[in-house]
């Protein structure tokens, strides 16, 4: 009995850890999509973040510098997407896909010599005094690394920014009706650049979390499709940072559970267990999409559409 409880607690704590990179990337994608830009390059930005974070940490011996590098690299790839899709009005789907393929390939190439290198520094668990000693809640919430705490703050902050402040109003207006925002003197291009950049930075941060905290080290393709799951999570979250938290931990839970079950020596083939997060993605998307249709809370109306002011007609 005691064992089962501990196992469940372990899975739940693992869910939060495994959900954290998803949460960062999902929040980033929510910002970009709220501004009207679909960014399918999240996977590429994450893996480049994971690689650059680890690479710089190996060089400097300090995980914080690695983290900073990952954020900058993610943001830079975001800027490439911004230039292509906002300034040049390229098809956002194609641009995003290209960046994912690019990021995956480049990281694989640049990371060859890093495979198997031990991490000189990682983000370690920081047990919060007093709160960390609480039964159940302590190990679940207050015995994590600093980036998890950061994500705890980031999600509510993003929600508050989006729905309770003037910059948030502008962000939502740009994604729903860029022509209106433009006519009211809000800079559509400027805000879209800003939020695609921010989205890229958060994807890079999510990637670095994987290589510096979740499973320290570098392995080819180590993000394993989490960028895609993040994009699906945006829909599940109906573009709301609060629900993104729920979604990210749900998926983190699936991942953690699958990991633990494999550890128990079950008869279920590991291939099947590895599949579960992706099967779960499909199921969740089907359910979430039905719900958004029913409650009429669809995507931002201008999602994926380039904006041009002097369009006649």
């Amino acid at each position, binding site marked *: 009995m005691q064992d089962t409880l501990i196992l469940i607690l372990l899975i739940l704590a693992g869910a939060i850890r495994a959900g954290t990179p998803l949460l960062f990337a999902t929040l980033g994608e929510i910002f970009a999509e709220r501004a009207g830009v679909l960014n399918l390059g999240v996977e590429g930005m994450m893996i480049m973040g994971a690689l650059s974070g680890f690479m710089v940490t190996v060089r400097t011996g300090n995980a914080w510098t690695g983290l900073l590098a990952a954020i900058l690299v993610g943001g830079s790839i975001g800027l490439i997407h911004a230039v292509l899709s906002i300034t040049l009005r390229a098809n956002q789907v194609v641009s995003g896909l290209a960046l994912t393929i690019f990021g995956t390939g480049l990281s694989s190439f640049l990371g060859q010599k890093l495979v198997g290198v031990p991490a000189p520094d990682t983000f370690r668990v920081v047990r919060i005094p007093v709160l960390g000693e609480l039964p159940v809640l302590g190990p679940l919430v207050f015995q994590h690394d600093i980036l998890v705490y950061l994500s705890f703050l980031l999600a509510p902050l993003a929600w508050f920014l989006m729905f309770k402040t*003037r*910059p948030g109003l*502008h962000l*939502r207006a740009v994604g729903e009706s860029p022509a*209106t925002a433009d*006519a*009211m003197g809000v800079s559509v291009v400027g805000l879209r650049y800003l939020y695609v950049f921010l989205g890229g930075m958060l994807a890079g941060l999510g990637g670095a979390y994987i290589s510096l905290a979740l499973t320290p080290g570098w392995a080819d393709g180590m993000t394993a499709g989490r960028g895609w799951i993040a994009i699906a999570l945006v829909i599940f979250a109906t573009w709301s940072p609060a629900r993104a938290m729920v979604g990210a931990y749900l998926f983190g839970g699936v991942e953690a559970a699958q990991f633990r079950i494999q550890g128990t020596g079950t008869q279920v083939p590991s291939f099947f267990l590895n599949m579960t997060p992706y099967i779960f993605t499909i199921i969740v998307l089907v359910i979430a999409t039905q719900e958004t249709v029913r409650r009429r809370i669809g995507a931002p109306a201008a999602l994926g559409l380039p904006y041009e002011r002097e369009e006649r007609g």
Partner: protein
Amino acid sequence: MTSAVPSVQMLVITKRFPGVLANDHIDFSANAGEIHALLGENGAGKSTLMNILSGLYHPDQGDIHIHGRRVALRSPRDAISLGIGMVHQHFMLVEPHTVAENVTLGLDEPRFLLNSGQIEQKIAALSEKYGLKVDPEARIWQLSVGEQQRVEIIKMLYRNADILILDEPTAVLTPQEARELFATLKRMAAEGHTIIFITHKLDEVMAISDRITVLRKGRVVSTVFTSATSKQELARMMVGREVFFQVTKSPWRGGQAVLRVEAARALSDKGLPALKGVSFAVHEGEILGVAGVAGNGQRELAEAITGLRPLTSGEVYLCDRRITNQNPRQILDQKVSHIPEDRLGMGLIPNLSLSDNLILKGYFAPPLGRGPFLDQKAIDAHCRELISRFEVMAPGPDSSVKLLSGGNLQRLLLAREISCCPRLMVAVHPTRGLDVGATEAVHKMLLEQREEGAAILLISEDLDELLSLSDRVAVLYEGEIMGIVPAQGAQVEEIGLMMAGTKRARPAEVAA
């Protein structure tokens, strides 16, 4: 009323779009306290000129002076800070957001936190003062079009705009709503606001403006005082030739019912009820006009009759044969013509040639087609004949349709739809966006078909058009018919009330 310095002065404004000279050396000025109408046909350059004044477009050439000071309008933000506000024809509102959020969008105040209480108070004060009733907490998609327009005006007043531009503001309003709007505008002008009013409707211009500037093909024809001009003169300036307002048509001779719709119900694209039990009949040689504010089920009605939208209940009969929920081909084959609302989207295929478009309804059967093959010779002859008979101005039958002007597109569409000798024509906004000449031509063609004995269901938002062409007018409101009245001697007042949802007291008489 006129002060020494005009509040708005635009000098030799020129704006070129690819292939079009939209504004050609335009001089325009308006004074504080006046309602200045900007009159012209579609494509005359009115909206372009005002988009320049509101900072949305940049002129290729020309100067703008506001209250006597030369200004550079680089963006809408610049225009707003100078007190220039524009109510666009297609409203600039964020639909999922609340009224208050829309009103404050783009402002520096509130700085960071959205303090809705304070904003809502200020909105309430403005709506009180100008008679613009609206709930600040409502979301835009929940509001009627008239209410949305009020939000647009409040938005400008909230920014202390003293120069207010309205682009075709009455197009979406019932006659009563339009009158309320005029009262508001007059009150604002009396307070010293400058009101610039874009329109192509002469009656409105005569009713509310102080001065009028007429544009034609990107140039200023003249600026006149309303008190010193007449409708006839304005029309001549606008079109460039004499215009006849009266359409002559013979009285209805009577005949069998061609189309009978009984208790038809259908859903909108969003899955909400769009038609709620609509019943009427259209007879041989009769035009039944359908009036109503946009979005009250007109499109769904036309699509339900032509087989493009399933009826959830009710029946449609063509000459006593049931055609309910047959597929479009089956229905069209029974000599039904459809002039859809969206000419280039649904009526014609822009990238295909004139002749390809002309044979869309008959390519699969002799004489145009044989089995899987097309008879190019027959097609060529057929198309040349139609193009000359309907006076479509085009380089040739092989040129691409997207290059045609609006009027020629409609001629082409009518050529195809009339050439099948229709028993029933369903025409949706057949003259929307056309200039006066093309409108006259379309009216003539519709009346000719009426003479030939076709039954015509004419859906339009232009009440004048409906009253002059139709034999009877039905009014749709939220998917229901509020009443059917004979067009001759119909009261615009009464139709306006029905458009706003008042059912006709007397049950509608439907000729047998």
